[in-house]
Structures are given as C-alpha cells and as structure tokens.
C-alpha cells in the first residue's frame, strides 16, 4: 500500500512535468493579417500591397463619414472654393470647411484628414519601393509595381505641399517650409523640407516612374500607367507656373486618348470605363461606402440626409456666364430651377429643392451610394494645355486649339459653338471659366486659386453668408495654408507650425 502511494507521488510529479505543453504552444498568428515579410516575398504578393493602396483611394479612413479617401479630400478642396455652393447647412457635414474654419483648427478631423491620408499612401508606397527589389518575380512586374508606388509617393507629396505649405512662386528660391519628404519607412519625426525640395523630389519620383511604366498596359483604370504619371507631372508643372513643361506634358499625357461623347457626359460621372477617364476607382457592392462615399455628399440622387437637405449647387455667376452656350452639355448637369425634370427616376419629394443644384454626379441609386470616383480626365489635360499656352505668352493659337477642341466636344448641337478667337487676358479668362465648369466638383478649385495667387470671391452669386460666412479671402492670406494637425505637432518635435 505504501509503495502504491509513492507511485502516486511520482506520477503526480510527472503529471506536472508532462503536463507542460509543446514548445510551439505559445506561437500564434492572426488570421486577418499577414506578416510584412511575406507581403514582399514575391511580386504576386507585392502586387497585393499595391492593390491595398488603390483601395485606400476610396475606402473610409479614421472612421469618419467625410473621409472617403481622395474623393473626400476633393470635396474639401471644392468646398473652399467659390464654385461649389452649399444650399443649406444640411446635417452639418463640411459646414466648417465651407466657412474656412476646419483647416485652421489643429484639432479638426478635416485638417488632419489629408495629412493622414497622403502620408499613409506614402508609407505604403515606401514599403513597396524599398522592398520590391528583393521580391521573387519577373522584372517587368517589379517595374509595374514600383513605378506605381513612385507615382503614389510623388502625387502624395505634391498634394501635401499644396495644402500645408505656402504656394510655389516661380522664379523665387522657394525656401519656405514645405512638408517632410518621407522616402523611407521612418517613424521618427522628420523636419519640414523646403517647398523647392519637395517639388524636386516629386519630379524625380515621377520621372523614374514614367520610365518604369513605359511598357505597362494596365488591366483597368484604378492602376496608374505612364499617361497618369505624365498627367500628374503636368499638374505639378502648372503649380510651379512652369507653363512650357505643363503644356508639353499634358499633351503627352493625353496622346491618343479621346474625349467622351455628350451622351456619356450626362450619365452621372460614376463609371470608370468612360473613355475619357484616365484614372479612377471602381467601387463594387461589398466595398460600398454607404455615407462615406463621395456620392453621399456630391450626387443628387442618393438619399442621405446630407443630400436631401444640402444638395450641392454650382456658383450661379459661373453657370449663367454668357460665354457658355445653352446647348453646352456641361450645363445640362445642373438645373437652375432645382427641379431636375430630366432625372430618371425623378427626384423624390423629400429631397429639398434649391436652384442650380448639380446632377453631374449620380449614385448607383437612392439606396446605393456607390459610384466610381474620377481622379483624372482627358479634358483636364486639354485645359492644362490651353491654360499653359495662354499664360506662356505668344502661344495663343495653341491655347485656342486645345480650348476649342474641348468646347466643340461639349456642344450638343453641332455648329452652335463658334470657335473662340480670344487672345491675351480674355483668352485666359475664358479658359479658366471653362476649367471651372468642366472640373466642377472634381477637387481643383482651392489649389487653382492658391497656385495663381488669386483671392477667393464668393460675392454676387448664390452663396449665403450665414452658411459660408467668408465671402472673400484675400490672396496671400495666411489662411491659404492649412495648419499642421495636432497629432503631428504633438508627436514630432521637429515639426514647425504654419503662421497662425
């Protein structure tokens, strides 16, 4: 008996020891994530890291309804111009952007949104740029992946410097503070580079990308090919007031690409297979973006509280400008009566009516906020070309050629448009009016005013003072610079705030 009990003691001791688990017992891995290492083992995987960036263009960020990637930022950029008109306070979204308050409030989420978004693009692009060379796979695939990552990095820095720094002044040193150039995945706070340095790096990245992408025949327009890189390069040159290069690169970018038909023009700007689109995102059902879709704020037909209460209108002075013919298809995308009789299905009764509201953007349905989001069109290239030639001086003919091509394409009744013969400032004015009407709602107006050092002037049109508060902002005002958001200021000791 006693012996049996000793056996029990030994067994108990053994049970404790043998109860120990296998060595791998404590190794666990997530199922909804993959390791960064495996993300770059092959070019196939690296392509998925690139697709992740494409998705960032239209996904929700920071759990905020108004942060639908690039579309969301485009709304901010137009809200701060004079062409997009809020018809009512609606349910509050964008009110403080429209009033020029949010981007000057370091704690506002709108001030933070572009900073976060473009640096998130940059970080994901850098992961690719700095790891792709070691991935296993064909050289051609590496070029495609790295080339697009470079375009994203350039485009992100370009967007950041336009918002958060003082404008680029042609012929000046441009030593004013820009934004930090992030070329590696660095988590230590970096100081701001100069505006000149940022623009130089942007062009370096784009040039490298254009070489890498030269043979790339993309599967769809959510990917960027050499034409997109060239188009961005044209935008950069325009922002630098480098009109010679702007005209050349815009022409190069659009080479061989058509303008859309007038019938296609009124179908809602929601389909990236449109022949004129150069770059856009395609949104499928299980990636719907509900209330954080671009179309949840900018379309006429999606039944969100925001659109029912605050449908977006066009500046009445712009719309009614006599240079546009009544048969210009672009005017058909707005209704000065606000009734939208041409919409099918018709506007439901609980949608508030206001004059000059747009039907340029149409969501997939009243209950479905989906729609492809446009980032670059051939028309913009014509407009860059026209503007650059006109501002260059001595090249009005080339400018007129580009302008008239676009205008004729937008005319629904052939012959109704008499080709322009304007010159000098008149020609520039005509081009700019066309640019405003053509690109309404596509996110260009704030940066256009800023690059041209022009004042904001909302007076005389259908803006309501109680909604926009700021009717005019002088050129060169400190408010043209967005403030560096608090999150960056708090975590980055190297960061310097803009003038308050």
């Amino acid at each position, binding site marked *: 008996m006693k012996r049996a009990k000793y056996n029990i003691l030994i067994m108990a001791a053994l049970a404790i020891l043998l*109860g120990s688990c296998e060595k791998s017992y404590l190794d666990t891995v997530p199922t909804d994530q*993959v390791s960064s290492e495996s993300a770059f083992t092959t070019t196939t995987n690296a392509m998925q890291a690139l697709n992740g960036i494409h998705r960032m263009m239209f996904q929700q960020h920071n759990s905020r309804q108004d942060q639908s990637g690039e579309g969301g930022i485009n709304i901010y950029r137009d809200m701060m111009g004079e062409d997009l008109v809020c018809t009512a306070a*609606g349910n509050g979204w964008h009110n403080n952007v429209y009033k020029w308050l949010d981007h000057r409030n370091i704690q506002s989420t709108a001030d933070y949104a572009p*900073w976060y978004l473009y640096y998130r693009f940059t970080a994901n692009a850098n992961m690719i740029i700095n790891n792709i060379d070691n991935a296993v796979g064909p050289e051609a695939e590496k070029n495609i992946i790295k080339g697009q990552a470079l375009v994203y990095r350039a485009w992100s820095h370009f967007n950041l410097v336009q918002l958060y720094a003082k404008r680029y002044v042609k012929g000046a040193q441009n030593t004013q503070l820009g934004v930090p150039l992030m070329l590696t995945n660095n*988590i230590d706070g970096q100081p701001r580079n100069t505006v000149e340095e940022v623009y130089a790096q942007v062009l370096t990245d784009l040039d490298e990308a254009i070489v890498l992408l030269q043979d790339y025949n993309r599967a769809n327009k959510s990917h960027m090919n050499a034409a997109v890189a060239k188009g961005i390069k044209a935008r950069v040159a325009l922002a630098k007031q480098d009109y010679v290069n702007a005209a050349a690169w815009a022409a190069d970018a659009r080479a061989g690409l058509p303008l859309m038909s007038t019938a296609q023009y009124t179908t809602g700007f929601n389909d990236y297979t449109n022949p004129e689109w150069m770059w856009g995102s395609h949104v499928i059902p299980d990636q719907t973006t509900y209330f954080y879709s671009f179309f949840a704020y900018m379309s006429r037909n999606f039944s969100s509280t925001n659109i*029912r209460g605050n449908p977006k209108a066009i500046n009445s002075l712009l719309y009614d400008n006599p240079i546009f013919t009544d048969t210009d298809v672009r005017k058909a995308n707005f209704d000065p009566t606000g009734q939208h009789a041409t919409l099918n299905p018709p506007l439901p009764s609980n949608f508030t009516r206001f004059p000059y509201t747009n039907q340029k953007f149409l969501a997939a349905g009243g209950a479905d906020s989906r729609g492809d989001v446009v980032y670059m069109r051939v028309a913009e290239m014509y407009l860059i070309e026209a503007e650059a030639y006109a501002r260059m001086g001595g090249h009005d003919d080339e400018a007129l050629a580009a302008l008239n091509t676009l205008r004729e394409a937008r005319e629904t009744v052939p012959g109704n448009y008499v080709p322009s013969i304007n010159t000098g400032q008149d020609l520039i004015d005509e081009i700019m009016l066309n640019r405003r009407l053509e690109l309404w709602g596509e996110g260009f107006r704030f940066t256009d005013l800023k690059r041209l050092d022009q004042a904001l002037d909302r007076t005389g049109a259908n803006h309501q003072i109680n909604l926009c508060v700021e009717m005019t902002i002088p050129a060169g005002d400190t408010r043209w610079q967005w403030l560096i958001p608090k999150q960056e200021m708090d975590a980055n000791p190297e960061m310097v705030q803009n003038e308050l």
Partner: protein
Amino acid sequence: MKKILMIFVLVLTTTIIVFGQAVQISGIVTSQEDGLGIPGVSVTVKGTTIGVLTAADGAYSLSVPPGSNTLVFSFIGMKKTEVEIQGRTRIDVVLQPDLIAMDEVVVIGYGTARRGSYTGSAAQIESKKIETRPITDVSQAIEGTNPGIQVTSASGQPGSGQSIRIRGFGSVSASNDPLYIVDGVPYALSISNLNPNDIESISILKDAASSAIYGNRAANGVVLITTKRGSRDRTSIQFTVSQGLSTRSIPEYERVSPLDYYQLMWESHYFSQVYASTPVDPAIAAQNATNGLIKNIGYNITTVADNAIVGTDGKLNTSAKILGDYAKDLNWQDPIMRTGHRGDYGITFNGGTDKSDYYVSIGYLNDKGYVLKSDYERYTGRVNINTQPRKWIRTGLNISGTMTESNVASQGGTAYVNPFFFTRNMGPIYPVYQHNPSTGEYLIDPVTNDWLFDLGNVPGLPVRPGGASVGRHVVAETLWNDDLYKRNVLGARTYVDIFFLKDFKFTINLSSDVNAYNGGSFENKTVGDGAPAGRGDRVNTLTTIYNINQLLNYSKTFGVQSVELLLGHESYDYTYNYLRGFRQGLIVDGNTELINFTTTNSLTSYTDKYRSEGYFSRLNYNFGEKYFFSASFRRDGSSSFYKDNRWGNFWSVSAAWRLDAEDFIKAMPWIDMAKLRASYGETGNDSGIGYYAWQALYNLGRNNADEPGFQQASLSNIDLTWESNNSVDVALEFGLFKRITGSLEFYHRISSNLLFSVPLPSSSGLTSISRNVGTMYNQGIEFRLGVDAVKRGDFNWNIDVNMSTVKNEITKLPQEEIIQGTKKLMVGHSIYDFWLRDWYGVDPSDGSALYDADVKDFATQESNLRIVNGTDTVTISHNNAKYHYAGTSIPDLMGGITNTFTYKGISLSVLSTFQLGGQIYDGSYASLMHSGTYGTAQHVDILKRWQKPGDITDVPRLDNKQTSVFGAQSDRFLVSASYFSIRSVTLSYNLPVNLTQSIGVNNARVWLSGENLLLLNARKGLDPQYSFAGTTNHVYTPSRIITAGISVTL
C-alpha cells in the same frame, strides 16, 4: 463558505462520540445578526469530546452525561459561547458574530487561508452583502466595501457591470482591469453570466503576496469569485423572488427654455456679423438677425411672425407665446423613457449526505431598463456536485449554463441613434411630432390616426438645422431599429483530489468555458442610416476557453511549526471566432435576417488565439501561530510576445507577526488582536495590447474591387515584453475593546516596462506603435475601521468605514512627453493629469474668449494676441493658446461607509460612497455651452454670456462663427469630481423562527432595497464616476432601482 468549511473539517477530522443513558438536551442555535438558525454549529460538552453539529435549521439534540455543567457552542465567524446547563433540557442560544474572525476562511489563489495567519492583503465580500441587492453583475457588489478599490458608475443599461481598479492604475495602454477568477479558473467572459445568488464569496487580492501566484495577469489585482456548494447533513429548498422599479438616477443637465433660445440664437447671428473679419454695420446686422432668425433655426413655434420673435434690439417680443400643442411636445426624453421593471426569481436545492453534497440553482431575471428597447433577460442554471467515495479521493463537477437575451440602447459618443446625445442636445424649440405650423396642432396620420414623427425635414414643414440633427429622429429610430444580442454560455469545472502519504494532495482541475454570441442590428428604411434601403447586421462569435492545472500540495505539522508547499502547472487556451455579415436592401418588412436583403455590404470572419502557460510554487511556514512566512514563484509564458521575450518570472515573499500572541500585548487586555504583516513581490501584465502586437503585419481584406489587396498595419517590435509590477505592502490589523476592528495599510506599487501605444508622427503613415516604455508608481494608504457603535440588548449599530488614497506618478518615459486627448504624460505627473488650454476669461470689450497665449514669435502672432489688464498676453485664437497642467482626475480621498442597524430580525443597511478632490473634464456640459450653433440646446449657464461692451463674465459672446474657437477644450470646462452618494439601502426582516417553523418553513425573509438613491456633486447632470480619466459622455446614466423581495427556505 465558512459554515460549509467548518462542517467539512469536522466531518473529516472529528470523531464524534455520543454516550448513551444520559440527559437529552435540545434547542436551536440562531445568529444574533439575522435571527436565523445556524447549521453546523459545534455543540460540545465542556471538558469532553462529546458533541454534535446543529442541523439545517440550527436545531440540535445532545445526550449529556450526568455531571456535565457546561455546553460549548462554537462556529467559525461567531464568538465561542459557553452556557451553564443548570438542569435545563431545552437550551436555545443566540451566537454573536465574532468581529475579529481570525479563523475566518479566506479564498486565495489555488487554496484557502485563515484570516489570522494570512500574510497577504485580501478583502472578502460574503454572499449576504449581495443577496438583497438588485445586482445583475456581481462586480457591482464591490463598490464601497473595501479600501483601495475604485469603480466607475454602472451604466443604466440592464446587465451592466462596473469597471474596477485595484490600487491605482498600473498601465497606460495595456489593460488596467483585474484578473477575474471564477471557481479557480481565469474567466475571460462577462461576469454578468453569473447569477449573483449563486455567489458564495468574492475575494479581492490586492498585494503581490496574494496575487503573484497568478503571475502573468495579476498586476492589476485579482478578483476571485467562488460559487456556492451544498452542505452535507442538510437538505433545503429556497425560493427567492424580487420585484423592482427603475428610473433615471442622475437628472439631465439644466437647459434653456424655448423662448430664451430664440433670443440666444438671434445674438449668435448678430454678433457673427458684427465681429466678422469684414464687419457688418450693427444696424444691418440686427435687421439680418431679426429677419434671418427662422431661416437659421427653422422652427417658429411662437404666436408671432418669423421676423417678430426677436426685435432688432435683440429682445424677445413680450407677446410671443408658444403656439398650440407645441408646448406639450418639446421634451424628447419623455417619449423614450419609461419606468423600468426588474423581476428576479430563483430556486435553489441544497443538500448532501456524509460523502457527497450538491447545490442546484435555477434563476430567471427580466430587467427592463428605463429607456425603451433596453432590457436584459437571463436564465441561469448551476449544478455543483462533490463527492468523496473513498478517503483518498474526492472529485466534483460544477457546471453552469446561462442564456441571455438583451436589447441594447445605443450610448456613448455623438451618433444620431444615441438617445442620450440626441435628446440632450436637441434645441428646445423642436417638436417630436408633426404640427400644423400655423395653428400648432398635432397633425394626424389619416390612415393610422396617430401622430406623425417630425424628422425635421418633412416637405411642407420647417427644416431643422444641422445642429438639431436634421432628418433624424431618435424616438422613431429607437422604436424601429433593433440592436440586440443573444448569448449562450456553458461553463464546466471538474477536479480530482487525491490524498496520499498522509500529507500529500494531488489535484487536477479541468475547465472549459464556451460563449456563443449572436448579435443583430437592424436599421429601418424610413429614417436614419438605414434609410431608404434598410440594413441588417449579424455578428456571430464563439469563444472557447480551456484551462488545465495540476497541483501538488504538501502540508505537515512538526510540533509548533507547520509547513505547506504547493507545486503547480497551468495552461490556458483562448480562441475567438468572429463572423459578421452586413447587408442592405430590405425585401419584406418585419424580417431582419440577412437573407431578406438584396445586397451584401460586408462579409468577414477571423479567428484569434491567445495562449499562456505557467509553472508555479508556494511555500507557507507557520511558527507557533505567531510568526508566519510565505513565498511564491511563478514562471509564465505568453503568446503575445516574440519567442525570446515571452517568458517572465514573478514572485513574492511575505511575513506576518501575531503581536497578540506575545506576552507584552497579552498584558493589555483591551487589545483583542494585533497583526503586522508585510509583503513584496513582482507580478506581470500582458493583456490589452492585442494578441500579436510584436509582429509587423499587413491587414487583409483591403481589396481593390475584385483584385486582392492588403495594407500596412503595424511595425515589428520583437523587444516587446511583459509589463511588470513590483509592489510592497505593509499593514497593521487590529481589534480593540471587543467592539472595534480595523486595519491600516500602506502600499507602493511600481509599474515598469509599461506596455504603451506610443503615438507616432502621422507623417510616418502609422498612428502608434506598442512599446515597453516608462515607469510609474501608485502608492496609497488604506484604512478600515469597524465599530459596534451601539450594542444594547437586541439592538446593534455597526459602522464600517473605509478610506483610501492613491497617488500616481510617472517616473520614466522614453520621450519627454506624450499627449493623449485631454492628458499629457510626463515624468512627475500622473497618467490622469489634465493638459488643457489655459482659459483666461472673456474680454469685456468684445466678449471674445481669451486663452493664455503661447508666445513664440510675437510679430507673426500679433494679429491674434491681446494685452489685457496691462500685462497679461492672451490670445483670441485657440490654436495659439498655451496648454498647461490643470489638475488631475484622481481624487485625494475616496471611501465607503456602511451603517448597519439590527434589531431582532430587522436589519437596515446603508452603503454610502464618497470621493474628495479631483477634477472632471465635463465634455457634455461643454457641448451645451457652445457659442451659438444653430439648433443645439444650451445649458442655463449660457444666460451669463457677454452681451455688451463692459460686461464682466466668464461666458463669451454668442457668435455662430466662433463656436470652435470659443468652445475649444480648455480648463474652463473642468469641474470638481467630489461627490457623496447613497449607493444602496436595504431594509430586511427575518420572520421569527418559531413562527416560520409553525408553518413548516425553516425561515423566511422579506426586504426592501434601493440603489442609487442620492448623489451630491458639483453640477446637476454630471456623473462624477463615468470614467477613471475624469471625462463625461452621453451615456445611459445609472438606474435608481427600488426593489421588494422575499425568500423562503423549506
């Protein structure tokens, strides 16, 4: 517990010898505390081994040999009582509770201890403190009972518990929650799965000596919950029923009236023009404000014209009255509130034979909260069986099942569907239902004959502005949406004890907990985020937890010395499966299952796994019941860390000295008991930072249309490791004058290698990274005093007071400062020190908000700087304001007071809690103090606003354009966190035993109780206990519950 244990010990160790042919004495032993019979009392004849135990109703019968003089009645927790027989054959005895209770058994990690010899710091809450309170989640039983424990308020949502902090705050980014152990096993599920009526005791382990045996997860203290088990030699059935009514306990903030509101909004528009960067002429501005008033805020519910409500002088038209039925329809809280009802029903069967015992319980709870569509329905069942068929083997099974169904009210944050946000901030001029704008009469739906909800943008009716949640309607959305869950939980614990070689015991404990959760929400297609399609959401999760431990116990007594040794191994496996589907496009009304929708918005699933493993040991040594020593050690591994850093060693040493066993104390008879104890040790923490924080990862599921994609999520950090807590504890426990007991305790707890989510510059593309950075300490004094203030005959008044302090200070950080929301972490400050803009006041000249300026370059900032009072440089730009440390949310002193009055079978118990010192950032108040957002309600304090040059006030002018500038977060919105509350009052009555027995009932009790009866604090509407960080939110404020109950034991 103590009653059961005593029986248990006696059954196992005592040989009861009964002689025949003697006098038979019988009687009933009852408790002085509650008048109930006490089972298991040892009744012995003095000087002999003759004795017997009392039965379930406290009755005994004993044959006493001739010549015996005295009977001795003893029971753990009661004073040993000797009674002269004096020839009687019936002797009824009332036992007094023994305040000193040095033999009381305390549940500790992997075992039990006697209070008198225990070397650690453990507080215990007995079942009787829980039974009569309408508590659904037993965490609510802890508040105010013991020092060193801080809790947040319980949400009014039925089924909610309270967050608990033991001895300060041990972590910044990782978890600060204590480890919950239920019947010996870590419990990762909701404590509300436990039926409070099944709880025997709750032990709270506060110091390293008591908690280090739990090593890796013990850093924030341990809460041990033990469920009831059966008593041998006893069979009883108990029925319990209670019924309660619940209402809101904390009132709403005081807000301005409709007519005042018109005037305020007029001013907001007026001043926004007058003080615009391009100022408008005051006369024109006034005309604009008068004419534009209704344009800005939408609704004219007065008897005068739109442009006649407020004149160009800014004054309210004295003939303006509220029109028609509008006056009855401006309170948005009434339609979503009701008087809640709480019904709690239970049956327990309890009994056993000499070798086995059983406890069976069935419970049903139905708690409907005071807000519509918030309720909690719970079925619980538990079977606990133990048996010892042979002397060397004992085994048992404790299985429990819980089924819960609950409707959940949206709360927290500024979602439109959150009724607490919506109703609080809705301007006072907006009606719930549609009215005829010209008569004010209710509009009637011609089909249903009901009133119609006014969504604020109904064609033909006025439009609410954005500040009044246009297009949304919380009453309609609450009624038409669903947010509910079902939760089925099954838990099983089993063990085998093998006793061998006289001094050894080997135990294997196996347990599993399974939690199946099915959550569903539906958003209607008429109003809200679901409109116009309707959306349905289903979340299914399955949590599976296995825990195995093997324990080897050795205990031996050598003369006056005794030794206990424990060796053990434990492994823990946690798996969480998550599946969610989200669809829109409702097909048929009334069915919210996913198949009844047209389009899939989201469909995803994942599995998380966490594992840990540990080896541990404990040695206890006792010399002559005078000197006690204990040491413990545990080596733990966690799957949350990289393989080279995942193992940690945790340990403790402790000692106690019973001074009262020394002759020099024995010479002072007024000292009943005195014990000194001290401990030191190290514990760890790995929870709350995610399961894979060390790994560099990409998030899956970021596809670009149908092309697969992923995105960067985190950076690698293989150095990540345990957060460790080193704590020292010194205490004196005492009993004096037979009526005072108490303890004075000091602790100092250092948390190092803090697991930290360090904010990164956003320019890095990431927002934070987990790191082990920094060190901080918590230290405090805990004091407890129990006094029998009055003991006169049957009347007893006991006061139990506990108080504690906590000081938290950061001593090391990797970077100079880390700013998080309203707090800034810096060496020398606590984790809850407010870092806010320094509010200066209001400029009497123009009513601008002034902040102390952060002057760096005067020239470039000049446009927003002002010099006031001759010397102070202030700014009118909140972006340029200087931040400063502005107090802390940690109180100077907190505590609880329990007053208990007993008279015969009547008992009245009052639990109060209080907190002195500390600050709260009242964001809810700040949201009502805005400077004129059209449509949003305002606090009555806004009436003190600046109105004309020369006004001296602390409330800036109303100016629609300046709301974010004037209303920016600053120390202006700090308010004192001090409070006094009457948390719980219970009046109970035990029917006299002889009365109940005459109707065949062992005992019967009735009671009346109230929760959250009184709160005194700095501001009406403020919940001072919403969060440890001293913030407020738009939440379901705690319920005031009045309950009546009865329990009958057969």
